């Protein structure tokens, strides 16, 4: 929001109202103030600050709901029980709705009244963004850029196409870009583009290995959707619809989401609603696709025995229902998997999700949240931590370095790509292992 809105609170109120349907209303009516959600939230658990109680974070949304939408709205207004929302209150709540919430859904998992608090925070962010109150240092700014250019780093289609071909050449992987017809259309995460380009080569290698017709689409490629985590509902729809249009244009039957938590939540569970009808293709996360083809035998992998543990991305496992796929893959690879204490659906969030990694001032809070994950990883005694979300990977990387880990942090996707039993024609030189790859210098990527 380049120019702040005239009446931020009014914008927020309108946005809140437009988001409230029966499910949200039922949630806002049900809280019995039992305080259990705080006990599941890494920010309260690590700081002991009652302000970080999850249900407390959505007070502005609840206040507007009771005053304008609830069954007894007239009474709340008449008796002054829910005052008009003020910009001061919204501003005061900014760090609660953004900095101290990864929308990881642990609170939703414990709430005895079945309130999806994480979802309420997402709705709250819509209102905050409409009021121009998304934290500007990075998250707000990146969302604005993404809304305007389709990629949070302003990567144009041409630049993306050239990047793909560079990576293809570098990794000696045939890249399919903007082909007229492709059954499978993969997408990328802007973090991969910036930090882990190897994952794009890995996707290509695997799709070639499967032998299906596939192709990147430069007219709709960036699935990260910073707009979602910033709360820019319109920006979010611009991105998703461009990807949908691109996939349709490519005749895709399967849209593959990259290693990114919120990308999956965005495309798998929310894009169709914005599209207005069922999507003409299925949406899968890359680990689901790999697990599917391992099961069908299309993907053959070598054994890669190692002492590892696996970090579940909240949006994939707890929120997305794809907890099993990574285990299938790791088992196929013969990895000695030491599950963390609260692994799988009840896993602690690494602290980097939900856009907080893009909020500079939230760093200290993030470090506190990461401390839990750090202890749990160290407790497993594993040498390497795999994950299939670049956001988590980045957080584990930074956190690990800060903690002086001698462990490495790896991507499950790249691990698979490195251990494919090559059906590719004999005689071709074995490409260099991808895990050590850095972004090519001077490729114009910030």
């Amino acid at each position: 929001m380049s120019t702040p809105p005239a009446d931020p609170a009014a914008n927020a109120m309108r946005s809140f109202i437009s988001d409230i349907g029966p499910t949200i209303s039922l949630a806002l009516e049900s809280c019995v103030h039992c305080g259990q959600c705080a006990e599941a939230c890494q920010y309260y658990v690590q700081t002991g600050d009652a302000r970080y109680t999850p249900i407390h974070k959505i007070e502005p949304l609840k206040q507007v709901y009771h005053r304008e939408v609830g069954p007894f709205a007239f009474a709340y207004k008449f008796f002054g029980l829910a005052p008009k929302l003020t910009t001061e209150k919204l501003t005061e709540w900014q760090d609660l709705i953004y900095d101290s919430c990864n929308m990881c859904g642990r609170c939703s998992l414990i709430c005895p009244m079945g309130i999806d608090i994480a979802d309420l925070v997402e709705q709250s962010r819509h209102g905050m963004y409409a009021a121009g109150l998304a934290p500007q240092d990075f998250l707000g700014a990146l969302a604005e850029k993404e809304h305007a250019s389709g990629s949070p780093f302003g990567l144009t289609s041409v630049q993306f196409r050239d990047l793909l071909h560079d990576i293809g050449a570098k990794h000696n992987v045939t890249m399919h870009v903007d082909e007229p017809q492709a059954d499978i259309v993969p997408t990328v995460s802007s973090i991969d583009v910036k930090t882990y380009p190897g994952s794009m080569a890995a996707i290509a290698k695997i799709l070639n290995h499967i032998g299906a017709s596939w192709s990147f689409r430069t007219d709709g490629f960036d699935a990260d959707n910073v707009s979602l985590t910033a709360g820019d509902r319109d920006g979010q729809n611009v991105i998703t619809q461009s990807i949908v249009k691109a996939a349709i244009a490519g005749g895709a039957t399967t849209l593959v989401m990259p290693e990114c938590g919120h990308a999956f939540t965005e495309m798998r569970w929310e894009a169709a609603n914005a599209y207005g009808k069922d999507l003409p293709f299925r949406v899968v996360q890359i680990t689901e696709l790999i697990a599917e083809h391992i099961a069908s035998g299309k993907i053959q992998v070598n054994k890669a025995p190692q002492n590892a543990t696996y970090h579940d991305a909240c949006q994939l496992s707890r929120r997305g229902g794809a907890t099993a796929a990574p285990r299938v893959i790791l088992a196929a690879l013969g990895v000695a998997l030491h599950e963390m204490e609260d692994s799988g659906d009840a896993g602690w969030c690494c602290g980097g999700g939900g856009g907080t990694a893009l909020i500079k001032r939230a760093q200290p809070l993030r470090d506190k949240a990461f401390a839990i994950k750090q202890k749990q990883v160290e407790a497993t005694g594993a040498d390497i931590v795999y994950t299939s979300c670049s956001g988590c990977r980045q957080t584990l990387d930074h956190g690990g370095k800060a903690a002086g880990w001698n462990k490495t942090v790896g991507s499950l996707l790249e691990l698979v790509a490195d251990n494919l039993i090559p059906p590719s024609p004999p005689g071709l030189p074995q490409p260099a292992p991808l895990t050590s790859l850095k972004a090519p210098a001077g490729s114009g990527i910030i």
Partner: protein
Amino acid sequence: MTLLAFARGPAMQAATLIMIAGMFWRLAGILLLRRKTAHAAARTPFLLRLAGGAKTIVTRTVPRKNFWPRVASGVSLGWVLHIGLFVILFAGAPHILVIHQITGLSWPNLPKGVIVIASALTLAALVALLARRLTHPVLRLLSNTDDYLSWLLVFLPISTGILLSGETVAGYGTLLALHIFSVEALMIWLPFGKLMHVALVFAGRGMMGFNFARKGAAT
């Protein structure tokens, strides 16, 4: 018209009608909002989603073992309170009688001694929960008038019930009238405060179970 006759007669009728109207009002106000259809491909068929809803209604009563250490005290006090209430309400002879009069259903009751013990335990849990709500930083931040009023409106029927079973403080008629008035106060406030969770807990958990089953997500 004695106090007791008033309590059992017009006052009970008024309280019942207010409760029924209030509950329907609140539920209608929630469920009749504009519904946005979800188009994302569901991982489970409709019937399994319903089953997911029903399952969550039950499973959310017991916190996951991962959460148990941090919520043990609050949850176990909550169990004592709610199990105590159920024993009092559905195994106490006079209560079964009231239910019988309204629905015609009846079943054997437990001796009064057991009910008095259950009431004492329930009261103790209630007092402990209030102490917790007044001291725990999170609960102090979250709690509003409704929490304390609803607490009182549960405390009064139980304490007047215990006095009634003792029949020493005052005549049976007076104590029973007070007991019924306290229940009526609860019934009148129920639809407008947190006591509405008697209905919302099923709707809330069911809705989450249903929606999450669509995603195959954990509940």
